[in-house]
Structure formats: C-alpha cells, structure tokens
C-alpha cells in the first residue's frame, strides 16, 4: 500500500513542492503502515497530535528538504507533551515539559514526529529485549532481534514505517541495530550533537545520531542536527559544514586501515567473507587498504562495562519517585519509598547495571576499576590517533554476526555485550563511525560495514559509505 514513503526524500520533497501531496498524506501513510506492522513493535508511543501538526505546518518551504517528512524519535529523547518512557515502567506515564535540543531542531525544520521508538530500557541492552514494552522485531526475519538499544528506530526505518529516525549510541546502539536491520546509522563525533534532553545513560559516551535508508539522507539529516548548544557544555563549536559535500567522489588514494582484530575468528565466517569482498572492491578502485595491528581493542568491552555502568548508576539515581515518574504506594518512610519505587520501576538489566556501577565506584574500587579504566580509555584514544596519522579511515564489520534469534542472549548478559565488541571502542575514543549495509548473508540477513573516521571527519566517512552503497 506504500505509495510515497518508499520514495527518496528528494522525490517526496519535489511532490510536496509541486503540491501533488501534502504532509498529511505522508503522515496518514506512515500511520497506516505502522498499524499494519504492529507486530514489529517499533513504537512505544504514537504522537496522537501528528495529523494536526501536519495540517498546521504551513506553506511548503522549497529550500527545506525535510519539510513535512515523518521521523521516529528514540524514546530516551524528551519530547514536550509527548510521553517519553525510556522503555521503562518507572517512566511509563512521564510527559516531559520541555523539548530536547535535537527535537527543537527537528520541529524548527518542520519534520513531523510520528512517535517514540522502542528501545532497550534506558538504552541498556543489545537487542532491545530489555524494553518494558516488549522487544521490537527484525523486519527481515520476524524470529530475530532488531539489535539494540536503538532497535525501534532501526525497525521503523528498515520496515519502511518512516524514512528517518533518531537513535542514540553509547556503545554501538545506533550502528549495531543498523547493521542487523540493513540501514545506514551514524554515530557522530562526541560533542557534535547536543545531548540536552537525551535521558543520560553514560554521559561521557552517549551521542545522538541519524538512522536512515541512504547515506545521502543520513548526511543531510546530520546537517540539521549538529551544533554547539549552550545547554550542553560538552557540545562543540565547529564551523558549519555540509556533510554531503564529499558524497559521490571517488576513493582513489584513500588510505584505509583494517585492524586484524576486526577480521579475527571472533567474527562469523560469512560476515568476514563479505568484508573481504568489500576490501577487494575498494582496492580495485584505487583505495589503499592495509591490514594492521591495533592495540587495546579487546579491552573496550571491559572498559565499557566499568565506565558506562559507573556513570549509569549515578545518572539513574534521579528516578526516585519524588519529582516525576512512578512512585510506589504503601510505604512507611523515605528509604522504603526509594527501594520500592526503584524495585518496581526498573527491569532486571537496569538493576544489574546500577548495582555493578555502584560497586565499581564504592570506596577503593573507584581507584582499582574506574580510575584505571579511564587511563586505558586514554590509551585507546591515543591508539586510534596513532593509526589516523597514516590512514583516513578504519573499517571492519559492524557486528561479529548477523541478527541473532530472539531470546538467545537474554539470559546471558555478558554474551549480549559481545554483540557490541566491534563498535564499543569507538565510543571510548569519542570518534564518528557508521554502519552501512553491504548486502546479505545466505539466510538473506543484512551485514553491515563499520567505518570509523577521525574526530569531526564525518564527511570522509560519508564519502566512502556512498561509494560502497552504490554497489552493495
């Protein structure tokens, strides 16, 4: 039944400008596809004012490619007057009173927020199965996970429900589900996009990013999301640039590094073979691809567990039932109120991470674990910088395997982290990185290529990604 939403944003935009369609047509189409695909469980909340918003959007702005385009927003990004749950019971009736900075930008650019995308509870998970609202489903194979934590965002784009989505990436949470569902997902450089209004999981790692069907649309959306924000001191002031500017250029002379670890036997053979095909193609077309040694990559998961959980244990302390969110009833004192509210409100994975994080920061542990992890984190950053002295980009597979079957990692939290083993090092160094689809395996499941760039050099990532996108 899809009529317009399968078209490129450019084509949709032309139709809007020519007044052949209206934003309301797009919204109605999206709403009906979402309804048809309810089993994908991509959304936690549908914006029940979106039709009204579409009608009141005003005259089409012919210079604004995104005018009237429906978008999904991950449910850990606050939206004024629109329920924001973080996929948690503790916030399942939480209606924010302000807009995140990215949401403001989306609204200023006249995009239409169709709803809030499903995710792992507080973005803690690798399959979106920790969602209080049940896991979203992979549209390529409904027995399989979408990946996580931005699973709903990935599914909403991959399933053709909306052309655009916002995800967040703390340890691969944009790139890994993008890989599992065969879409383009970018985690920009830490500081590129304001985190104001993103419900914090691990503040020093979290980053919002665009999830789209094509590289060009991804770069175009990123253009609108970036910028220093007075409300986020970690956001960075950079000269304005057009991230699409290198799209379509050839790759002759481009120097690309492939760390041995990324094609070691931790990676599924079919995935490895596909990456090798990509490498051959790049070499045939004039790029230099060197297989290199890179240190510390294998420490990243451990570092992530220490740093992310320590920060999370503090960030999630505010959910106590005092000011917002659910509050437990029948309590006799404040300690009971805290314990019961949080005991009932949080799911097991969140509780597990809060406990580990609290333990890591307690007393002497802070020195033994946390301080040491920060030191090794510096070493990872230095190691990336060392390689980027000689290379423009680093590539590898985004994930070690294709999307797993629902439920297989659920009872093994440590195994679940291994889904993110290739993507986490990037967050440690704050670098930009993307997953771009490079075809499917024998079971017809998507495989993603991971492209890592220098800090603030997203444009070069888009250049390579667009070149690959043409062929794979």
């Amino acid at each position, binding site marked *: 039944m899809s009529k317009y939403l399968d078209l490129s944003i450019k084509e949709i935009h032309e139709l809007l400008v020519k007044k052949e369609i209206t934003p309301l047509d797009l919204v109605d189409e999206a709403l009906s596809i979402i309804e048809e695909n309810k089993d994908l469980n991509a959304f936690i909340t549908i914006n029940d004012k979106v039709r009204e918003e579409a009608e009141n959007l005003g005259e089409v702005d012919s210079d604004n490619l995104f005018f009237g385009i429906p978008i999904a927003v991950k449910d850990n990004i606050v939206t004024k007057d629109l329920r924001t749950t973080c996929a948690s019971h503790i916030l399942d009736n939480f209606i*924010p009173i302000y807009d995140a900075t990215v949401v403001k930008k989306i609204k200023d650019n006249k995009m239409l927020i169709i709803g809030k995308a499903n995710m792992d509870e507080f973005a803690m998970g690798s399959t979106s199965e920790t969602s209080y609202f049940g896991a979203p489903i992979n549209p390529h194979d409904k027995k399989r996970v979408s990946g996580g934590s931005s699973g709903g965002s990935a599914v909403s784009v991959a399933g053709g429900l909306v052309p655009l989505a916002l995800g967040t990436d703390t340890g691969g949470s944009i790139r890994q589900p993008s890989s599992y569902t065969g879409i383009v997902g970018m985690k920009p450089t830490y500081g590129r996009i304001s985190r*104001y209004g993103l419900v914090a999981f691990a503040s020093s790692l979290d980053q919002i990013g665009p999830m789209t069907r094509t590289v060009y649309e991804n770069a175009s959306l990123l253009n609108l999301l970036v910028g220093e924000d007075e409300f986020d001191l970690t956001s960075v002031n950079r000269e304005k640039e057009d991230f699409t500017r290198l799209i379509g250029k050839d790759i002759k002379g481009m120097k690309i590094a492939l760390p041995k670890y990324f094609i070691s036997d931790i990676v599924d053979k079919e995935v490895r073979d596909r990456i090798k095909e990509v490498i051959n193609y790049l070499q045939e077309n004039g790029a230099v691809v060197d297989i290199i040694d890179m240190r510390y990559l294998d420490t990243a998961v451990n570092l992530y567990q220490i740093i992310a959980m320590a920060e999370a244990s503090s960030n999630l302390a*505010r959910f106590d039932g005092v000011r917002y969110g659910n509050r437990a009833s029948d309590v006799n004192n404040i300690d009971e109120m805290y314990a019961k509210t949080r005991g009932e409100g949080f799911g097991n994975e969140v509780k597990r991470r809060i406990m580990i994080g609290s333990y890591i920061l307690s007393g002497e542990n802070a020195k033994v674990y946390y301080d040491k992890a920060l030191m090794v984190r510096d070493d990872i950053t230095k190691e990336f910088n060392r390689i980027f002295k000689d290379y423009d980009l680093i590539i590898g597979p985004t994930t070690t395997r294709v999307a797993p079957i629902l439920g297989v990692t659920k009872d093994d939290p440590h195994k679940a982290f291994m889904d993110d083993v290739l993507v986490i090092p990037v967050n440690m160094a704050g670098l930009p990185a993307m997953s771009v689809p490079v075809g499917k395996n024998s079971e017809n499941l998507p495989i993603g290529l991971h492209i890592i760039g220098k800090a603030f050099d997203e444009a070069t990532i888009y250049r390579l990604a667009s070149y690959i996108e043409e062929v794979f």
Partner: protein
Amino acid sequence: MSNYIPTIGLEVHVEIKSKSKLFSSSANSYGMATNTSVNVIDLGYPGTLPTLNKEIIRQGIRACKVLNCKINRKMHFDRKNYFYPDNPKNYQITQNRTPIGTDGYVEIEVDGIKKKIGISDIHIEEDTCKSAHRGNVSLLDFNRAGVPLIEIVTTPSISNDKEAMAYLTKLKELLFYANISDCKMEEGSMRCDANVSISKNENLGTRTETKNISSIRNVGLAIQKEIERQEKVLENNGKINEETRRFDDKLEETLLMRVKETGNDYRYFIEPDIPYLILTDEFIDDALKTLPLLPDELREKYSKVGLSSLQIEKLINNRSLNDYFLGLLDYETNYVTAVNLLLSDISSYLNKHNKVITDTHLSYEKLVSVVKALEDKEISNKNVKDLIDSLMENDLTLKELKKEFKIENITDDSFIKEVITKVIENNPDSVNDYKSGHDRALKYLMGQVMKETKGAVNPKLASDMLENELNK
C-alpha cells in the same frame, strides 16, 4: 581535667552572591515565593544537563585571593552520590579532587596575639532544596536547589572557642567585603559545622562533628560545651564515638544526631557533563580586577588620613557608610570631620528613616561643603542637626539651604555685640575665670551666645568678637 588539648576544625558553607544559580539560569535570590525560582535543571529533570555560571568561578577565584589560597588552574567538578529527597539528582555536583583553592589561611587576633588559621581547601558546589516537614509529609522548596556555595574547610589548627569565633568573624568580614557573600547566618547564607576532638598528647582524639550551628556566638558555645562533654566522657573512662551532633541553643549543649557509619561512601567520580576548566591568567586577573579593598587594607588607608581606630572600626562595621566614605577620599576635605558627621547626625538620620546613604541626596559635593562650612565656623553643629533632613532629602546646596533656613543672615556686628555684652554682664564669674587663664570659660560664654541667638549667628564671627570683647 584541663590538661586536655582541644583540636578544632571548621567547615563553613557560604552562599555565593550571583544573579543566577550555579548550573542553571534560575535567579539566585533569597526570600522568593516557594518554588518560583525553579527550572527543569534545578528539578533534576530527565535529560537536563548543567550549564555553568562563569561568574561563580570568578567569585571562587576572589575567595581564593582573600583567603590566601593557591588557585587550582586545571579543575573539574565531581559528583557526590547520595540519596536524599532534598537532593534533586540524588547526586550533588561539587569539587572533590580539584578544589578551586588550597593551602590558604586567615589571620586572626585573640587577646592581642596574632595567629594564622590554616585553610586546607575551598571548593564550589551546589546547594540542596530546602525541606519542611509537616506531620507525615515533607515539602520541598527548589528555590535553593542549585544555589552556588563555597565550602571553606580549615585545617585542625583552631585551639579554642575564642579562636573559632575570631576566625568566623574575620572570615565573614572578608567574604562580605569581597562581595562574595552576604554571610547572614540567620538567613542561612553562612552555615558552620565544627569538628572537635580532645587529647592529652600529640595524637588526635576521635572527633565529633556538630552541624549547622546558627550563629558565631553559638559556634563558640557549642565548641566549649562539646569540649566539656568529651572531657567528662574520657574522665569517666568512656569512649568518644565518631558521630554527628547538633547544638541546641536553648539547652546550650550538643546533642547526638547520628553515629557515623564506617566510611560514608559517596562514590565520587568526575562529573562528565562539565568539561575540565582551565583558568587562564586573563580570566583570573579579570576576576580579581573587581575585588574591592579588604578590611585590613581599609584600616591602613583610613589610619593614613587620620581617622581614629574607633572611627575606623565603626566605619568598617557599616558597609554602606564605608563604601560611601571610600568614595569621599577622592575629594579634598577634612576626613575626620566628615566621618564624625557620617557616624553621628547622618547615621541617626539613616537609622531613623531606615535608609542607606546611597538612597539619599547627600552628594559628595554637598558633604564637602558642609564640612568646609563647619571648619570655617559659618555654621554650627546645631545648624547641621537642624538641616539634616533637608540635606539628605533634597538637591538644594548648602548655600540655598542656609538662605531658606535663615542661617546666614546674622553677621550683623551690632546685634552680635549686643548679645555679647549681655552675656558678659550676666556671667561675671566666667569672665573672671577667663581672665585668670581658664580657656574653658570662653567656650562656656560662647555657648551662652549661641543659646541667646538660638545658634543663628555666624559662629566664627561671634567667637572672634567675644574674644575681642573679653580681652578689652
């Protein structure tokens, strides 16, 4: 019993004067209606991040300067994690590892002996909510949440209650004069905790902490009582516990609040939402540029222009008069006469009308003209008393006022002579006294002349004429 040596350390919190709060743009002002100076950041709302009010860093730099501390040029904030309803995020943003200032001192004088009280560190942090308990409900006022504080921690270098009180008095004077804080203990903008231990030898005894003592006098009392209590316990072979106490000002004794659990664990870690601050020379110089003269500098300056130490202390105790007088030093005048006016007739007027001098019409030019007229005996002190309301309340010059109040007309020799003759006739004893060399008699006779004329004659003229007449 008196052979115990007490060791005392004080922790003082002062609210920093600023337009807005430490991490948000809400107003920082005392006495607003409950929960009216609150925004999403102060509420610890999901997704919010701290902004940083640079003016407060400047205030911190000023505090370092006036308390002789070394400034930490590379510093960061830390999170102190603990659950309490008045703590909106359930962590407080403070400075643990890199306090803005370290290794300072305040010089005090007790019974003529000078001593330096060491300051181990001063750090910047945010205040909590104010809570009120009504029956079985607790109410929170978020106006105070995020109000900037500096905490000033002394080394255990205070030996007794007198030194503690002298230290607090000096600290208050310094911070008040540096425009860092109002230091009003009664409004809670200055709060003091006292750590007290006693010992018979050089090994420090177990200390107790007495919290939130409400006045300088009570700090002295609390320390005295706590020393007495500890002595009694030890003399009875008891043991001092590490505990938190409070001072009851009605009972005038310290009471147990809670026994400290071993190693209170605040799980400190670096606040990831606020980047490291690098304080440049320019930034520091700029902050110190606006530092007003401090009390000891004022004392020196004032004694150079001839003020007595009594006048100096009275001036310094009255900030607005002091600031006014400081401005007067740019004018040529008799400063002693001017200060006498400020501390007598002008102060009485201000007290009576509950005004500060900057709310009046007493320009420096006008004050200088009054001083000159007094010096030249064109007017008397009584004239000033009569004119004071007009001097303070309108813009007429002294000359115009004299005309209006008909003060300047009695320079009529014959009239004055008539009065003098009459006074001489009526006071033969005083005339004889004068003639036998008692100068005081002249003053008395002059007084009689003024009385006869209701103070309306030109005093210089009348005095000259009286002397002439007596010497005939």
